């Protein structure tokens, strides 16, 4: 019995450690979320939502562009069907992320973990989850979610109530917290893997081009992200197929 007990407590402390790490790494997300959700709250207010409705929408939906699109539809009194279609398009990238995440999960991971973690596949929590080597530990994500998700919902409500109180300087600085985090996730693997390094440069260049090229630049940022992600990842998969699962775990 004894070794089994020891093993059990080993797993417990490992999960506790992951949870703690997640809370620490969730702090930059929380800062960025406060800034972004604050401005989202201003949109919510101008769309006629109350602070509670803004809070509720952010607590349930956890999506910046998706919520923004949703609020403008509420303001326009759009039919429910239109809301369904627009949300599908605005949030389609989460579908891709969820597919990618499914390949990083331990196949034994319980359904309850998948149902809970899935709700928090945002650009940031997804990035964070895949930034750790090996199989995804749900407790790491829960730590980050516990710290950052309430900031997202509360920030929206505060934005509705106190629109323009936060100084522009602070918003500007907090805004880059999320991008800094993305850099910290994609740069270290690029250091080890030349294919990823080249890929990132191609992504930067084509994303920049797509932001001003005719026709493409008229699409929403979310749609451009999907098109570029599918095109560039498919190209990389054809040119540089990854041979072994081990090869992947080392980089990620």
């Amino acid at each position, binding site marked *: 019995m004894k070794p089994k007990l020891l093993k059990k407590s080993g797993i417990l402390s490992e999960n506790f450690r992951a949870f703690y790490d997640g809370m620490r790494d969730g702090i930059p997300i929380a800062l960025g979320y406060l800034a972004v959700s604050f401005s989202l709250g201003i949109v919510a207010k101008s769309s006629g939502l109350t602070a509670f409705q803004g809070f509720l929408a952010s607590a349930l939906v956890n999506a910046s562009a998706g919520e923004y699109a949703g609020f403008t539809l509420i303001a326009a009194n759009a039919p429910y069907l239109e809301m*369904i279609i627009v949300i599908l398009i605005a949030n389609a990238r989460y579908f891709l992320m969820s597919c990618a995440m499914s*390949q990083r999960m331990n196949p034994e991971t319980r359904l309850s973990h998948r149902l809970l973690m899935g709700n928090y596949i945002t650009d940031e929590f997804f990035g964070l989850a895949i930034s750790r080597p090996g199989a995804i530990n749900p407790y790491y994500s829960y730590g980050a979610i516990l710290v950052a998700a309430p900031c997202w919902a509360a920030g929206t409500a505060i934005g509705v109530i106190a629109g323009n109180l936060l100084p522009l300087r602070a918003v500007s600085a907090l805004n880059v917290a999320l991008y800094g985090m993305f850099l910290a996730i994609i740069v270290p693997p690029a250091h080890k893997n030349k294919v990823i390094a080249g890929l990132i440069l191609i992504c930067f260049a084509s994303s920049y081009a797509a932001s001003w090229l005719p026709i493409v630049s008229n699409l929403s940022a979310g749609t451009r992200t999907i098109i570029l992600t599918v095109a560039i990842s498919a190209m990389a998969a054809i040119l540089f197929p990854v041979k072994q699962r081990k090869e992947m775990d080392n980089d990620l």
Partner: protein
Amino acid sequence: MTYNTYIYIAIMAGVTYAIRVLPLTLIRKEIKNQFLQSFLYYVPYVTLAVMTFPAILGATQSPISGALALIIGVIIAWFGASLFSVSLCCCAIVLISELLLFPPV
């Protein structure tokens, strides 16, 4: 006809939840197809890179401070700074450079 805000919110939440949870719950096994496997391996890097640039230049008051945050963020991440320090360092660079660019009156 007027629509109910709470039903709008319920639709937003329901549709988004379905998008996020279906792949994660339905794909329980390792995908064997090499193309799909490689594709999904590259997706996270590509999607995060596409979302970072040029958006970071528009996130700040001046594109210069955004560019500085990008360059210095890449450098310190390259040399192994943690996620937390890269992120806070970017914030600090923007705050400092904008204090210089737009001095408080």
